[in-house]
């Protein structure tokens, strides 16, 4: 009995990824002891908190077999709108600034969802469109200018560096990322709506026959994605204390990579929050750790690509093994 459980545990995607991550961490640590210090881990998680938040949203989109490549643009647009409000009203509170970004992001996501669900446009095309539209709008609303550090109020700049949300325990941005992960975990695992998302991804036809309103689920996940992208926009502005028109450009690739490394299937229906978090941490470790051991920026992209392909091959092999095992059990 114990043996089977152990095998099951090792077969679990998250555990194998976790082991790989630990090994990778040890490898970096051996070459540069600065990596494992609490300070560096803290820096790394802060710098990649937006990637984590976005990856959790992207996972719900991938679960229904969709994709959203407009998140970088939603992040920029929502973050820029929020930054502009702060610039023009210096006493905007942190909460209001974040809510503005969340609402703007949510609306962008809702539009994505409507175009995909009601308009029947393939997700990659629909979000490619909004990616360009929103990027253009970001330049337009900002009138081609940046919002600089001195135009953002102290409270909002300090938000990314303080710990008050968790009463002094951990940094606000890391706290937000983990709370969102926890909420997403419970939502996807224990609520009806969450299970419906998996059902639609596994077999849309079957889900529809069983009475699930598919287009409503689609609109829901793209809106959620938009909300999280908007939130990331606000976090981005707070963290880097400025807003530029080109912020977050290309981040969708990092985020999709985090999901794929974390075991989310692009065909839909498969993936877990824990896996995605580990995937995002992999991306963070690559970005933070490789420069520490003297790997240049040029090799970084190639290494990132290689790791994605390798983990996916590993994933597929494990999956195949699992299927074989369950088939064998059925035969007996």
């Amino acid at each position, binding site marked *: 009995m114990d043996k089977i459980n152990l095998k099951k545990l090792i077969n679990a995607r998250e555990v194998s990824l976790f082991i790989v991550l630990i090994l990778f961490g040890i490898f970096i640590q051996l070459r540069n002891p600065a990596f494992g210090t609490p300070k560096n881990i803290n*820096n790394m998680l802060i710098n990649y908190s937006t990637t984590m938040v976005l990856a959790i949203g992207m996972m719900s989109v991938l679960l229904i077999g969709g994709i959203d490549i407009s998140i970088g643009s939603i992040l920029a647009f929502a973050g820029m709108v929020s930054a502009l409000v702060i610039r023009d009203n210096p006493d905007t509170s942190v909460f209001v600034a974040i809510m503005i970004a969340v609402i703007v992001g949510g609306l962008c996501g809702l539009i994505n969802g409507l175009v995909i669900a009601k308009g029947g446009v393939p997700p990659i095309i629909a979000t490619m469109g909004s990616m360009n539209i929103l990027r*253009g709008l970001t330049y337009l609303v900002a009138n081609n200018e940046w919002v*600089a550090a001195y135009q953002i109020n102290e409270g909002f700049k300090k938000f990314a560096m303080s710990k008050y949300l968790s009463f002094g325990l951990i940094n606000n941005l890391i706290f937000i990322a983990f709370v969102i992960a926890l909420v997403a975990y419970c939502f996807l695992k224990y609520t009806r709506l969450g299970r419906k998302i998996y059902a639609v991804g596994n077999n849309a036809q079957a889900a529809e026959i069983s009475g699930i309103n598919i287009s409503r689920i689609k609109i829901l996940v793209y809106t959620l994605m938009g909300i999280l992208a908007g939130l990331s926009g606000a976090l981005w502005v707070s963290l880097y204390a400025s807003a530029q028109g*080109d912020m977050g450009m*290309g981040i969708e690739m990092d985020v999709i990579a985090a999901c794929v490394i974390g075991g989310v299937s692009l*065909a839909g229906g498969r993936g877990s929050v824990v896996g995605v978090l580990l995937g995002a941490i992999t991306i963070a470790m690559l970005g933070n750790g490789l*420069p520490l051991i003297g790997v240049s*920026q040029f090799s970084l992209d190639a290494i990132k690509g290689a790791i994605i*392909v390798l983990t996916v091959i590993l994933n597929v092999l494990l999956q195949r093994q699992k*299927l074989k095992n369950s088939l064998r059990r059925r035969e007996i």
Partner: protein
Amino acid sequence: MKKRIFAILLSITVISALLVGCGKDNNKAPASGDQTNNEDNKGNEGSDNELKGKKLAVIVKSAGNPYNARQSSGFKEVVEAVGAEVIVKEPESATAEDQIVMINELVAQKVDAIAIAGNDTDALQPALQEAMNKGIKVLSFDSAVNAQSRAVHVNQAGTELIGQSLMEAILDISGGEGQFAILSATSQATNQNAWIEAMQKVMESDDKYSKLELVDIVYGDDEYQKSVDQTQALLSNYPDLKVICAPTTVGIMAAAKVLEDQGVTASVKLTGLGLPSEMGDYIGDGDDKSTPYMYLWNPIDIGRLTGYTAIALVKGEITGAEGETFVAGDLGDYTIVKAEDGGTEIILGPPFQFNPENIDEWKEVY
């Protein structure tokens, strides 16, 4: 099932290939922002009848960057003052392809002059030569196109002048000795590479730099997240680091934020080339500020000098040959000199220093 796995694998491979490919540059759809300024000049007093109805166009590197916007506004100010029409073109992404499309549009519109900040040294040659064959005066500014594609180039500051200024700053800030590192944009950025090379030459040329040690050159790709990673790595890897020099606007901003957030500004200082508005918060003398001073040229003046040069070319006062002189309004007298690439250029002047005394005034400007 096999088919499905294959399909998944295939799509992942394609996506990761895209990832690797897209990692560096911003592969954005080439849409073009186009601002044509058709405002009638309401009987401007200083109008030059010779230039009435002439159309002078400016193509910047890309939209969405205040630095580029200031260049075009300087150009506009000068050219509109003499009563000519200004056409400002801003490609959405900093690619040569977008600029070629715009050059062709301007040729079709029969403009009289095109001033361009080139996104590529050689790729624009066919389009620009075509324009010159049609009698259009072509000049480059900020980032040069090759010598065959232009009449003259307006250079913000000579490469040597920049290398010199940056090395002087490092020497001064470090107190004459110690480790320093460079945080650059991308490895392909022609500007940055030339400046870094010039810095290294300056370092070798004089004994007073012998106690300085360049420990590393890292690249943040002008992306915030990556620049933060690289700065943090510099701090971890070189505990004795005294100065970071970042000759790039995003890099210097990210580095300033990291140094101040990590609370190391008493021992590690920053200098380089940056936008005053973005760096306004970080420039100061105290131990809590990361940047004692930094440099940049004045993009408005680049735009204005480009405007004056374009006017002089259209009027026929100059042809772009070495040794010609002209008066650039209140900027003063300029002489056309030989450029390193075999063409000719006009040098605006040494980079401008932004320090605690003048930053409050400048951060409002650009």
